[in-house]
């Protein structure tokens, strides 16, 4: 929703970056060269990306199409429960092998020239390989096994299917690190059920959303809804867990208060409005279903996967870059297969907190665009990320930008800049 289409002059991007992780140069959100490098080094690099839920591909031949950055990907259930993922690109002329969101197949046949692939993504046959009546056909030395789309390695955790393009990537578990994997398993601990899917198009660079989700500093400042209804405030207990390499982040907000509400009054902050009360507060009646008193947990996995537990509203978010100043945010809202009708209704009602119309996430939909527009002429300037220090380690507070710095630590490492 910009005033005008923001097309900064990218012919002379500064390409410089102060040392460390407490400054973020704005050209990173604008430079098309950087976007291309991110595709090669991050999305096709040694990182893992959410592809789909296991329950979305329950039976042999069930598939879904998704994306790893720019790369279209098919993820499919093979024989004996195996999960395969491969680039959704015919080895012949490059057409999409599957163009539906999902389906169930015995094998995949490209519509263009009927090249056929098995569920592992291996090319099995080429139409008219021997020609017609002895004429035409592929050369004698053509071998189907020499051709095929790039394959991804697929692994799962908690019913979530991840893939990596880089054969040199560590295992998913090693990539996530044990403390972060434990945060995922805390919520994703039994059979899931999809309750809704939505796509939100955001007018900003994908990294601005990656930062936003890790930015625990803004939560009760930008989002008045949170603060007023005591869903999360800095004076509630909680903190951030950051993986050693900075890549992954988990924030937690715990029910009890640690300090008096006066800390907000002292700051004279807009988000503290004691007059605001809900007509139907019952929609925030939450049930502690994970054996602890964590009301809110946000897990952000480098680079583009986010897992939300907002009371009893659970969702997976996937970001897909669509140019330097646009991205898709794919929401998959889930419940558990064993939900009672009451719990399911609770998840539907608390779904109002998140998503494109979320009482909380609504602001996150537009704030990245405000930054994208704000920095339009500032490619040589830097953002300041110093709340809570200049490093990226776990902290027992959310009044910090440590996890944002963690993102940039991992980013600089993979990008080599």
């Amino acid at each position, binding site marked *: *929703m910009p*005033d005008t289409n923001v097309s900064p002059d990218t012919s002379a991007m500064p390409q410089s970056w102060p040392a460390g992780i407490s400054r973020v140069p704005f050209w990173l959100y604008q430079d098309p060269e950087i976007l291309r490098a991110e595709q090669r080094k991050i999305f096709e690099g040694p990182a893992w990306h959410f592809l789909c839920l296991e329950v979305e591909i329950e039976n042999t031949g069930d598939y879904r199409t998704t994306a790893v950055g720019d790369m279209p990907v098919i993820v499919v259930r093979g024989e004996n429960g195996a999960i395969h993922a491969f680039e959704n690109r015919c080895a012949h002329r490059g057409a999409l092998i599957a163009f539906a*969101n999902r389906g169930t197949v015995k094998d995949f046949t490209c519509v263009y020239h009927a090249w056929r692939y098995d569920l592992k993504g291996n090319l099995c046959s080429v139409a008219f390989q021997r020609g017609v009546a002895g004429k035409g056909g592929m050369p004698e030395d053509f071998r189907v096994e020499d051709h095929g789309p790039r394959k991804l390695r697929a692994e799962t955790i908690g019913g979530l299917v991840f893939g990596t393009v880089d054969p040199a990537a560590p295992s998913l578990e090693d990539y996530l690190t044990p403390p972060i994997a434990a945060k995922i398993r805390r919520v994703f601990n039994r059979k899931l059920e*999809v*309750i*809704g*899917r*939505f*796509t*939100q*198009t*955001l*007018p900003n660079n994908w990294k601005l959303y990656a930062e936003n989700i890790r930015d625990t500093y803004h939560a009760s400042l*930008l989002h*008045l*809804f949170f603060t*007023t209804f005591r869903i999360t405030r800095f004076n509630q207990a909680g903190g951030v867990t950051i993986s050693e390499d900075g890549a992954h982040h988990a924030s937690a907000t715990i029910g009890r208060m640690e300090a008096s509400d006066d800390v907000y009054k002292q700051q004279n902050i807009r988000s503290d*409005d004691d007059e*605001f009360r*809900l*007509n*139907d507060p*019952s*929609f925030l009646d939450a049930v502690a279903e994970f054996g602890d008193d964590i009301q809110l947990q946000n897990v952000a996995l480098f680079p583009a996967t986010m897992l939300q537990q907002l009371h009893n509203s659970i969702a997976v978010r996937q970001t897909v870059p669509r140019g330097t100043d646009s991205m*898709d945010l794919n929401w998959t*809202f889930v419940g558990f297969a064993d939900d009672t009708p009451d719990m*399911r*209704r609770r*998840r*539907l*009602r608390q*779904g*109002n907190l998140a*998503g*494109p*119309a*979320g*009482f909380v996430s*609504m*602001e996150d*939909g*537009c*704030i990245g*665009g405000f930054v994208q527009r704000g920095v339009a002429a500032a490619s040589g300037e830097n953002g300041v990320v110093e709340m809570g220090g200049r490093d990226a380690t776990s902290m027992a507070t959310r009044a910090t930008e440590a996890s944002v710095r963690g993102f940039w630590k991992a980013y600089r490492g993979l990008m080599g800049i």
Partner: protein
Amino acid sequence: MSAELLFRLSALNTAYAAAIDSDRLEVWPDFFVEDCLYKVTTAANHADGLAAGVIYADSRGMLMDRIAALRKANIYEPQAYRHLIGMPSILGHDAAGIHCETPFFVARIMRDGATTLFATGRYLDCLRDDGALRFVERIVVCDSSRFDTLLAIPL
């Protein structure tokens, strides 16, 4: 009878659109019965039987809270809608009420004047007629699964 009902339904939709488009959002919950369901979802979710909505309000209190949050809590750029609501198809009557389906277009006008077709779809309605027609259910089924930036004002 049917012609009169069609006229009343159309008049209701016209009033509904005018309330939203002229920023009289505080009267919007009055179009619903107390024990209502208002949901904004997508054609894909609806076809798959997936129950979640981007907005899911199953009481009039939740509709009032939605408006109160927009007025007092949520941050978004000034914007307005223009609804074009088509002719209702009356699908039938049962104990729950009158069932009908009505197509809509909604344009969104941003503060800088940019006007875009923001949503198209259909209302799947169930209405109670106790002298005045009010929505027991209004399921807003958007044709697209994609929402641009955010959905602040109700559809």
